[in-house]
């Protein structure tokens, strides 16, 4: 990580930006804002989303799952300040198809391809079960980064607490493919169900016995058949998983952590930060979304009105608000309570995010706070409003 990398530097120079964070913290919005800024700087950028809000998906033109990036119309982009050489594409990941495409790419024959796609283990592995979202997102990023018509790929990782599975996916696949157990299961006699466990080393033999006791021999045979079908392409997979990992942890990629200001969300972000550190992932910085900002003037008050001024403040405000048919003192109370409550949110956000931002700053990362903008961000103009906060230098909170 180059210490000086701020969001603007990232979108200007990097090739892959990965937005990580738990769900519901504005990760998709962050990813789309980064990609749009890249386009505004004249780069050909693409945003890969996993689970966008419908209106944002509409705005990006990716209402349906699709596995190829769709470019936003030139006129639309020009209105947003994207120069002629820049462009913005978006796609919404189709996990199942990404996986199937991968099999098609590496299968050494039509027959092998069909055998894998039809294997019941494969269907369950690739279809519903957890983990494939992460793997296919990873795979798609790599595929996009191989293309020479895109300069910047911004990816929104799967929404969950499992954000790090995304990073682990290729390594886990590699370890699995390299494991002795797989080699055992690849034994052709095994698939035919005619091999005694005794031919294997003791450790492996024990493992197989346990699995057999629990799942039955048929399950092992299905796995074995799957792995056999897979074997022809496993070298390709392995090579690819290695390259994916190298690319995502290399110089041309950067990770940005998205967080919300609520205490629970900050706690999740801290946990994620810790695990990123353990995994050796270079984190460029954190973006705290939807932070409450005190509308000023002056610093955030501890309470509104100040102690001792309650009656006077209420009276002055009620007098100013007075109007026939209006309960002016109730209105004044509500107005002061609204300000008091809002100030409490501002203070709570600052308090909750203090540790997170301090830790990221200590590690040399950037910190950006995006205020809660009125309403949801659901169009490209909204992304520009977010961008103002991402890319301009900020005063201390």
């Amino acid at each position: 990580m180059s210490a000086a990398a701020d969001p603007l530097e990232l979108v200007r120079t990097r090739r892959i930006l990965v937005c990580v964070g738990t769900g519901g913290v504005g990760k998709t919005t962050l990813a789309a804002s980064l990609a749009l800024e890249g386009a505004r700087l004249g780069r050909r950028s693409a945003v890969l989303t996993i689970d966008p809000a419908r209106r944002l998906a509409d705005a990006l033109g990716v209402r349906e799952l699709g596995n190829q990036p769709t470019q936003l119309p030139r006129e639309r982009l020009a209105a947003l300040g994207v120069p002629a050489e820049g462009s913005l594409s978006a796609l919404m990941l189709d996990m199942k198809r990404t996986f199937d495409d991968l099999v098609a790419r590496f299968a050494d024959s039509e027959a092998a391809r069909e055998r894998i796609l039809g294997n019941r283990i494969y269907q369950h592995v690739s279809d519903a079960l957890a983990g494939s979202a992460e793997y296919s997102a990873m795979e798609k990023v790599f595929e996009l980064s191989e293309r020479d018509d895109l300069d910047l790929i911004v990816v929104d990782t799967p929404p969950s607490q499992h954000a790090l599975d995304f990073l682990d996916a290729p390594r886990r696949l590699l370890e699995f493919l390299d494991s002795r157990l797989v080699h055992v299961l690849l034994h052709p006699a095994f698939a035919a169900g005619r091999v005694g466990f005794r031919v294997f080393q003791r450790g492996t033999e024990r493992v197989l016995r346990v699995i057999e006791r629990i799942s039955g021999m048929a399950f092992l045979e299905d796995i074995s058949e799957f792995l056999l079908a897979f074997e022809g392409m496993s070298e390709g997979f392995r090579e690819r998983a290695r390259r994916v990992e190298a690319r995502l942890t290399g110089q041309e990629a950067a990770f940005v952590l998205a967080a919300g200001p609520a205490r629970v969300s900050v706690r999740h972000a801290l946990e994620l930060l810790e695990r990123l550190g353990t995994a050796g992932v270079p984190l460029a910085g954190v973006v705290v979304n939807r932070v409450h900002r005190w509308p000023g003037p002056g610093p955030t008050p501890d309470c509104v009105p100040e102690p001792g001024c309650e009656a006077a403040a209420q009276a002055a405000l009620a007098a100013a608000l007075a109007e026939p048919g209006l309960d002016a003192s109730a209105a004044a109370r509500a107005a002061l309570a609204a300000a008091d409550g809002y100030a409490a949110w501002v203070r709570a956000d600052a308090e909750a995010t203090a540790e997170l931002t301090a830790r990221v700053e200590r590690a040399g990362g950037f910190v950006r706070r995006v205020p809660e903008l009125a309403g949801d961000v659901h169009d490209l103009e909204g992304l520009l409003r977010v961008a103002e906060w991402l890319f301009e230098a900020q005063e201390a909170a």
Partner: protein
Amino acid sequence: MDPSWTKPGSFARFRSRSEPDVPASLLDRRLVIVTGKGGTGKSTVAAALALAAATAGRRVLVAEVGPDEHVPPLLRPAGGLVERVGYEGRELRKGLRAMRIDPYEALAEYLSLQIGLRGILRRVLANRAFRQLMDASPGWRELITLGKIWHLESLREAGGTPRFDLIVVDAPATGHGLTFLDVPRVVGSAVRAGPLRRHAGWVESLIRDPERTLLLPVSLAEELPARETTELVERLRDHVAIAVDRVVVNAATEAPFPRGAEDLDARLARLPAELAIPGAPPPAALAACAAHLRARWALNRRWIGEIAAATRLPVVVLPRLPRGVRGPEELAQLAERLLAPGVSGAAA
């Protein structure tokens, strides 16, 4: 523990005393699986429900699924230390136990119950190849976790009363949440025979039993969580067939201004900029705060309505608390609303 709780029939006494609310009280189930998009306050709702049940005299277990412990810090007494509860679990207060289900620990327990070969088992579990196979294999974590929950549900005291009256599960975020619950069925179709298939069947019949098990989706009144919640309910109805009878909307802003002053922010904005209000910020700042509050309220109201309309389920609205949820005191406020008999539809 209150010894009266080990007597048969005491559970029924509580049942008959409870309000005849529609839908039936959350406390009448054996298993409530709390799920929702990340950031909606799933763990908070799980903790509030567990606290409410314990306060009502039930013996409750709250089980978290996932790498981190979010529930115990919420349930600790003010100033109390947060100790990890782990797989063994810990009694956090009278009648309320918390645990975190770690899949490898659950696997070890399951295998020792099934096979009993402890010596061999230890070596197998420590075997690198075995770990690699398990790390790469999808599905088993979910299955073994649900299996553990099934086992906890089946625990009985000497007299035959359940060990726990209510088990609250803080399930993974919905993306993974439904996958999580669907795994027993998937395993049933992927594994052709053997104990694994049989046990998956047991687990499946528990989670699909509407008398015993309820899924409690938690949402926020905002677009993304609302949409995900709606999709969750649709998928539950169409595919997964797990009972769901209400939606919880968490952290909703309540009607902010008195009747007749609904446009308070606009009224404040019209005041002269130089108006001095003792000890308070100028009118423009007051107007900005009021406008923010009104916008949030309107947004929340809109999405509560959309959730109610799209799911055709009652919506339980929990208020956004001014200082957030820090511990049992705030949880108790939420718990009261969570169990209130009058479940609102599209809240006004």
